[in-house]
């Protein structure tokens, strides 16, 4: 890495005391907690005070966390609701509404992975004072798979059977098949109240969806449509905090305007979609502001359609990868903000393989590789083999200036080695419609977050049964098919022990790096900005929101 990157992940000393990593060596990375109150729910200040305004460039409009929503709505969900568990910035699973994280060791998950028993905390209350019980968990899980309910994601939940409420603090169920990622999925499944949503005829149109009631650190205040959402502190929160009295999410439609308001101090935290790379240098020099680079889960790449004859040959894919000057793109176009990567796994993940072969930018070697593989330059200078010209389209969203420039740069480089890459961009709705999902493109330039709730299971992206164009169900748009990878992915989804899973996914990354269904360009870094006086702000790219732990924020 040539760029100086300050990556600040603020530590929380109280929490560290609980990171019994020794225990995790025996039981995996799952963190076992004592039943009842966790140690960090201790000293609360006399009264929360102050207000934090978070600017977001997309308006949060969906307040029932079980309904389909984009990332920005999770900022509100994380504050108003709780899930059974949460993932902390280090990737450790911690209990939230549950009293402990279920593992094989504590009997929470049976040896065959099919029977689950979750113990819940007994001191959580809904914002209207009603106690939280296992009935709410049962109601939530059943609502998600209710065909009349417009649910967001059902993967994993659809495998749950026979949910039994043993007591207000204990719930059991059976999985149709062992599915290890479910634990991670539950960290993004917020629990909703049975006594409110269960009482309405049509949960899709319940008043609850406009004024949600949760168990989280903040209560619903009010919404000024098109402008902002105001949440107020829940002083009887069972967990840490909150220390601020009001949390406001301000909708600012334009990213430049949001940065301006960040500069002028109208907003305290720059939230989704954060600060653009071209403003990074200036932002980091602003007085009274803390601007940091935080690794994101998204990887930008040239995504290939492997059914195209040009890409069937591995030598071609390797040569194309070798002919990209990634460093130049990062430095010149993206202001040095992102970082290089060789894999789809985020660099900060427990499952990240750090010793994959590094790409080396070499036009000479790329040329040699193509020559040796039998791709000879034709009369027009473009390489040909068996009647197939090494010419293809590259597509992305129109109007994305940085991507368009990167495309042109790569196009030029490729032309010098006899490869013709044509640029064919579409507006977002067309690009990511059937063109993408049914693999009608040649190659695409795209930024993808491969992991769901930071779980390493990438079956939806790389398993051969996930190819929609061939009748499968999933998002394997590259039409990638490798029987060994299929087997490993199946095994990984059935394995609960994190260390054993790690071995599996390291091997998956190795195979994919060799096969190159996509050519990694870089791993994204997000430019986080906030007022320097805000303490307790912890980025956590294992979650979908910068405000995942607003409960811990306070003004110095």
């Amino acid at each position, binding site marked *: 890495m040539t760029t100086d990157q300050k990556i600040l992940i603020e530590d929380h000393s109280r929490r560290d005391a609980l990171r019994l990593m020794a225990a995790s060596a025996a039981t995996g990375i799952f963190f076992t907690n004592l039943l009842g109150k966790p140690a960090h729910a201790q000293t609360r200040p006399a009264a929360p005070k102050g207000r934090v305004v978070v600017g977001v460039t997309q308006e949060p409009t*969906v307040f029932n966390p079980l309904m389909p929503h984009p990332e920005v709505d999770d900022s509100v969900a994380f504050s108003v609701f709780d899930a059974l568990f949460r993932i902390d910035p280090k990737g450790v699973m911690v209990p939230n509404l549950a009293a402990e994280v279920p593992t094989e060791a504590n009997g929470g998950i049976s040896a065959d992975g099919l029977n689950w028993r979750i113990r819940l905390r007994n001191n959580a209350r809904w914002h209207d004072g009603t106690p939280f019980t296992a009935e709410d968990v049962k109601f939530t899980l059943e609502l998600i798979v209710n065909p009349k309910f417009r649910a967001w*994601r059902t993967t994993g939940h659809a495998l749950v059977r026979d949910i039994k409420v043993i007591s207000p603090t204990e719930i059991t169920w059976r999985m149709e098949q062992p599915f290890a990622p479910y634990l991670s999925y539950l960290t993004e499944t917020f629990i909703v109240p049975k006594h409110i949503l269960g009482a309405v005829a049509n949960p899709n149109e319940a008043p609850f*969806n406009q004024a949600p009631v949760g168990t989280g650190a903040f209560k619903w205040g009010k919404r000024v*449509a098109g402008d902002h959402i105001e949440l107020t502190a829940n002083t009887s929160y069972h967990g840490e905090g909150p220390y601020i009295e009001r949390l406001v999410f301000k909708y600012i439609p334009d990213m430049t*305007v949001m940065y*301006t308001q960040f500069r002028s101090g109208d907003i305290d935290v720059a939230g989704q979609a954060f600060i653009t790379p071209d403003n990074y240098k200036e932002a980091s020099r602003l007085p009274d502001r803390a601007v940091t680079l935080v690794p994101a889960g998204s990887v930008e790449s040239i995504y290939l359609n492997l059914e195209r004859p040009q890409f069937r040959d591995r030598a071609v894919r390797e040569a194309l990868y070798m002919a990209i000057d990634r460093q130049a793109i990062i430095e010149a176009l993206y202001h040095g903000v992102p970082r290089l990567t060789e894999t789809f796994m985020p660099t900060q993940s427990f499952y990240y393989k750090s010793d994959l072969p590094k790409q080396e930018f070499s036009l000479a070697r790329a040329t040699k590789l193509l020559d040796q593989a039998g791709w000879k330059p034709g009369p027009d200078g473009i390489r040909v083999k068996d009647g197939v010209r090494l010419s293809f389209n590259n597509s992305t969203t129109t109007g994305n200036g940085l991507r368009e420039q990167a495309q042109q740069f790569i196009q030029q480089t490729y032309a010098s080695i006899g490869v013709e890459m044509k640029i064919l961009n579409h507006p977002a709705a067309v690009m990511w419609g059937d063109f993408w999902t049914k693999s009608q493109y040649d190659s695409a330039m795209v930024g993808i977050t491969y992991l769901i709730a930071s779980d390493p299971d990438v079956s*939806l992206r790389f398993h051969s049964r996930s190819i929609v164009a061939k009748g499968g169900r*999933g*998002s394997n748009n590259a039409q990638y098919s490798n029987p060994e990878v299929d087997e490993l992915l199946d095994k990984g989804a059935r394995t609960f022990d994190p260390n054993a899973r790690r071995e599996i996914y390291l091997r998956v990354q190795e195979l994919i790096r060799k096969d190159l269904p996509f050519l990694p360009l870089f791993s994204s870094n997000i430019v986080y900005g906030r007022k320097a006086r805000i303490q307790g702000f912890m980025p956590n790219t294992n979650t979908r929101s910068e405000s995942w732990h607003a409960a811990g924020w306070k003004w110095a």
Partner: protein
Amino acid sequence: MVEFLLKRFMQSIVLLVIVSIIGFVVLNLIPGGPIAQYALDSGMTQDDKERIAAQLGLNRPLWVQYLEWAWRLLQGDWGTSFRDGNQVFSVVARHVPATLLLMGSASVIAVSIGTVIGIRGATHRHSVFDYIATVGAMVALSIPTFWFGLVGIYVFSLELGWLPAGNMYTIGDGSVLNHMHHLIMPSVVLALVHIAIWSRFMRAATIDAMGQEFVKTARAKGVSERRVVMKHVVGNALLPMITLAGVQLPSLLTGALVTETVFTWPGMGRLFLDSLSNSDYPVVMGLLMFSALLTIVGNLIADIVVAMVDPRIRLA
């Protein structure tokens, strides 16, 4: 009069139906839809997306969807937003105050200043004032609003700190003074273009009126120039302006998209763009019908007022 109104009413109904059909068809022809935003969501499977599309009723034939929408509209149900599940009527209505405030104040500024500049330019043709006004109008019309807006924010907010960088009010301080403080820049920036338009129109209309026979007569009678202008010319010059105002009425309530984006003003223009970007069809259709309705009403009011004011005009 009654005959006229009745005829207008029938024409309006036909117009509204045509507008709604065209709008509905074009909207659904645009690729993508409410589900498109989840295209890159790793956790949503094809099954999830198809299920949601079916639950929203999007896979029924287009004419069925249209008829259902139209039938509901006739019963007063404007539909439910795909995004936040609110009634379209309340979604639109919620943004009316902000829009009225911005557009209203911009219009008041534009009309008052534009009229004065226009009249003065016409009565003092080819003077220094006239030339400056003409050039000024061209400049204001040529330079995009967002440029004025961003420069204004840079100078008055970031550098001088006199005015806020945007928003309708400071959260937590909803006082009238605070509102007005926030209103200054956006309404002035927005008014710039409208001042240019009004002044040019007013100038042309005034020149036109001044060339009329009755002005010569008044002057011959010895009426002072000032009285000629104020009493006779301006009145007649304002006639085409009333029609113009009627045409402008819809924009009063449909907002100014660019200004609202630059100044983070929660108006209807912004609502329209957001709904379109997120394929929130019910709200887009609602706004379309609202805008069409306003255009019809605006034109009708303008026609009636002109007929009332100008005895030469009889309503058809």
